[in-house]
């Protein structure tokens, strides 16, 4: 840790420092500041205008993090305008008090503004962490070394760095009354304690996990206390919950049966959203990383994927990509990438969707497209005529399928204006209530029923057609786009359901690979069949998302940017946002199913997309590393590339000798990955989730 006067830092470097400071909520990105960050050293610019001249040198001070015993942090208070910090070293000496002039610190001002924009929870600490420099020092430190469990109860200002057993006794860090049952359970299930407290990597891991867990358990503890005593706390409940609670029905359920768990889980989810909005954003990805299990253990250091969502592709952009003949002049990969990152502006969708669905070739000119469209129209009319003869209409199959389609069309997206009831000009008993758009949906599905004789119409297909027709509003074009979409989705509707089964198995294996603790919970609750994800995958989250979000998601998925199996990662990303609540509160399959079903229409698509991309890239990287390690194990040679930590050709330890406690640092890298590779083999199902380009 170092203290440097602001005036001593060159102007161009100063900006970099401030940028790094502001990136606290992003994963450590060493490459961003190659010249500034040295291993296990952390420069800091918190005190930009210190009054006291610190320590040994007149101008600056620094010491190794390992040399620090403890820190005392005094937040700003009424009597003391500026917060301050005292660093005590292991040799008993202390740095002079450092003062935080937060009102002059650019990054603190920025984060306060952000914090002020959101409401703070009941826990004052959260707010405090956001608003003064000392707190962010601790946040940064926690990413590098262990800093107590929390503040010492004997002295609320004291933070012990890398506390030993004696420290814990002396400062009373292990405080029984603060430890909820949850924390205890978690601690017990953590890896066994070990002697080497000095290894910064291990400490960082443990510490990150620990902090995040503690935060979650605080919420769950809070929730549990509240449930025993709900009514007096009514004024503090979120409005939505308050009104729900006041319904006598809910109250009955709450007082009585275990479905209250589902309700409470939702509450917990709601509370944690509110309570930790800021903290969560920052800690979530770190939590994922520690949760990654197998994937994480081989990724050393953990990956830091920065995912940026962009704005939708606009009509102007699309036109600019075309030449005079209307042929696209830009590489398809670039177009797809743009769509993947931002989607398509609604007005442009009717033009672009036929390309994404393969009905119009990317290389075609305007004239060629007109011809294709016209030919398609003729073919469609021919297909449609097939089932419109009186002969065809008298068959059992026709009667049954027509009836089935009619029933489903009548209950598909009727809340949308296009499919809503028309004024009763034709009378209530008219076919499909006199709405011509419903008749068109019916005609398209009937035609498809005869076009794809193998499958025919199956429930769920009307959900897949509805957005296509609503966007394209052209019967023939909607049919061909639907038929093309169905080629992709066909396996979901196979008679023996192997396609759905295969995807659910792949998702379960992915959860095991990426989030083993959550997997174990699903195992304990007999939920590994993931039946609650069935609807998600069958119709690509159509029922889970708002109609506009659904269109956005589909156009993104059609790009196949990473893999054709990206929907599985969307599913993983949704589960990932709820796994802690599910693990804490839902102990049975039916409770989980109810909770997951009720997520419909509450899903934040953009957040889910970012998460899904990160999860995909982490998965991909883990597989690559495991493959690399696997080939080393097979050939019996250590690759210099993969033993970055040990540097030399350390001989491989037999997997069995290290299987009891796989380590992840230094020369243990090879041994532990060997173990991980045998514990979590990359199955064919998992491999099938990777895109072609990665094979």
């Amino acid at each position, binding site marked *: 840790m170092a203290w440097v006067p602001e005036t001593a830092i060159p102007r161009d470097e100063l900006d970099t420092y401030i940028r790094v400071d502001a990136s606290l909520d992003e994963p450590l990105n060493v490459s961003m500041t190659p010249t500034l960050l040295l291993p296990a050293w952390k420069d800091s610019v918190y005190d930009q205008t210190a009054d006291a001249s610190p320590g040994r040198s007149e101008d600056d001070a620094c010491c190794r993090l390992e040399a620090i015993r403890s820190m005392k942090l005094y937040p700003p208070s009424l009597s003391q305008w500026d917060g301050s910090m005292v660093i005590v070293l292991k040799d008993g000496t202390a740095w002079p008090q450092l003062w935080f002039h937060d009102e002059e610190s650019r990054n603190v001002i920025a984060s306060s503004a952000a914090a002020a924009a959101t409401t703070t929870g009941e826990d004052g600490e959260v707010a405090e962490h956001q608003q003064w420099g000392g707190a962010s020092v601790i946040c940064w430190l926690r990413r590098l070394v262990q800093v107590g469990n929390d503040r010492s109860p004997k002295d609320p200002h004291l933070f012990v760095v890398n506390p030993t057993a004696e420290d814990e006794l002396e400062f009373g860090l292990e405080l029984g009354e603060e430890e909820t049952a949850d924390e205890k359970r978690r601690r017990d299930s953590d890896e066994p304690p070990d002697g080497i407290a000095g290894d910064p990597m291990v400490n960082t891991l443990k510490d990150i996990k620990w902090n995040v867990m503690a935060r979650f358990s605080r919420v769950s503890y809070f929730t549990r206390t509240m449930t025993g005593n709900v009514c007096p706390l009514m004024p503090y409940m979120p409005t939505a919950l308050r009104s729900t609670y006041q319904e006598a029905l809910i109250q009955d359920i709450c007082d009585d049966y*275990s479905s209250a768990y589902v309700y409470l889980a939702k509450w917990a989810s709601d509370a944690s959203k509110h309570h930790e909005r800021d903290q969560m954003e920052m800690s979530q990805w770190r939590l994922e990383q520690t949760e990654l299990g197998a994937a994480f253990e081989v990724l050393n250091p953990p990956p830091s994927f920065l995912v940026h969502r962009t704005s939708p592709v606009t009509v102007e952009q699309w036109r600019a990509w075309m030449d005079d003949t209307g042929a696209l002049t830009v590489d398809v990969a670039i177009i797809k990438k743009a769509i993947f990152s931002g989607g398509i502006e609604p007005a442009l969708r009717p033009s672009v969707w036929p390309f994404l669905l393969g009905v119009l070739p990317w290389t075609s000119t305007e004239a060629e497209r007109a011809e294709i469209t016209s030919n398609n129209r003729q073919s469609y009319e021919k297909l449609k005529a097939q089932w419109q003869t009186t002969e065809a209409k008298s068959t059992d199959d026709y009667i049954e399928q027509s009836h089935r389609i009619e029933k*489903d069309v009548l209950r598909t997206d009727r809340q949308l204006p296009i499919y809503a009831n028309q004024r009763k000009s034709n009378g209530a008993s008219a076919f499909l209530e006199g709405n011509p758009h419903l008749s068109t949906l019916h005609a398209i599905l009937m035609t498809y029923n005869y076009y794809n004789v193998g499958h025919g119409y199956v*429930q769920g297909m009307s959900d897949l057609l509805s957005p296509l027709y609503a966007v394209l509003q052209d019967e023939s074009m909607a049919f061909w786009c639907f038929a093309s979409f169905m080629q992709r989705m066909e396996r979901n509707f196979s008679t023996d*359901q192997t396609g759905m089964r295969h995807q659910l198995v792949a998702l379960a294996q992915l959860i095991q690979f990426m989030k083993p603790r959550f997997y174990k919970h699903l195992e304990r609750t007999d939920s590994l069949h993931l039946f609650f994800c069935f609807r998600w995958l069958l119709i690509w989250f159509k029922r889970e998302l708002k109609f506009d979000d659904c269109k956005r998601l589909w156009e993104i998925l059609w790009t196949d940017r990473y893999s054709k199996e990206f929907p599985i990662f969307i599913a993983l990303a949704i589960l990932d946002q709820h796994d802690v609540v599910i693990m804490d509160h839902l102990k049975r399959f*039916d409770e989980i199913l109810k909770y997951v079903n009720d997520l419909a229409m509450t899903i934040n698509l953009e957040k889910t997309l970012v998460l899904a991309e990160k999860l995909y890239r982490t998965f991909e990287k883990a597989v690559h590393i495991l493959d690399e390690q696997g080939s080393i194990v097979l050939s019996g040679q250590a690759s210099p590339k993969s033993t970055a930590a040990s540097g030399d050709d350390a001989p491989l330890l037999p997997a069995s000798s290290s299987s009891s406690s796989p380590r992840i640092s230094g020369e243990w890298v090879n041994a532990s990955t060997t173990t991980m590779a045998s514990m979590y083999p990359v199955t064919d199902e998992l491999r099938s989730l990777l895109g072609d380009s990665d094979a």
Partner: protein
Amino acid sequence: MASRRKVLLKVIILGDSGVGKTSLMNQYVNKKFSNQYKATIGADFLTKEVMVNDRLVTMQIWDTAGQERFQSLGVAFYRGADCCVLCFDVNNARSFDALDAWRDEFLIQASPRDPESFPFVVLGNKVDVEESKRMVSQKRALAWCQAKGNIPYFETSAKEAINVDQAFQNIAANAIQQEPEVEIDFPDPINLHGDTNRDQGCAC
């Protein structure tokens, strides 16, 4: 939390697509009807507290997808069922003919300890529709129920809330049989037209 012993009755509703399973469940639990319920994909359930013989029990009512194709995956929730409700649309003969298949499928998948005595209840729904459209007579339905071991039969309308409460009260009473120590009186099945309910329908 309360310490008294809870009874949870698990009830599964089966039947062809569009016969009104979701509507029946929602009418019973939420006292609401909408003709725009989406086709059920996967499964969902609602719970309701109900008094059976002065005892408060919780009924967990599972609503399932009607298309037979999706049945093979949906067995997870069949297990541990206390009663199975078979539904058909009285205006759709095919949905009535399918009852055999639904019953067999359930017995195979749920594999109850004693399949012979496992409680089923049959609901003939949509009796609000004009008489001229009716395809399955009460007699025919009752005959089928009798042949399958005197399954209670109710004619219902989820839309008009006809007989729905009575049917589910009977379902609860049937389901609670599976509770070992509970003694229950069976309310008589009620039917729409006030006929004697176990009349000798022709074995058509």
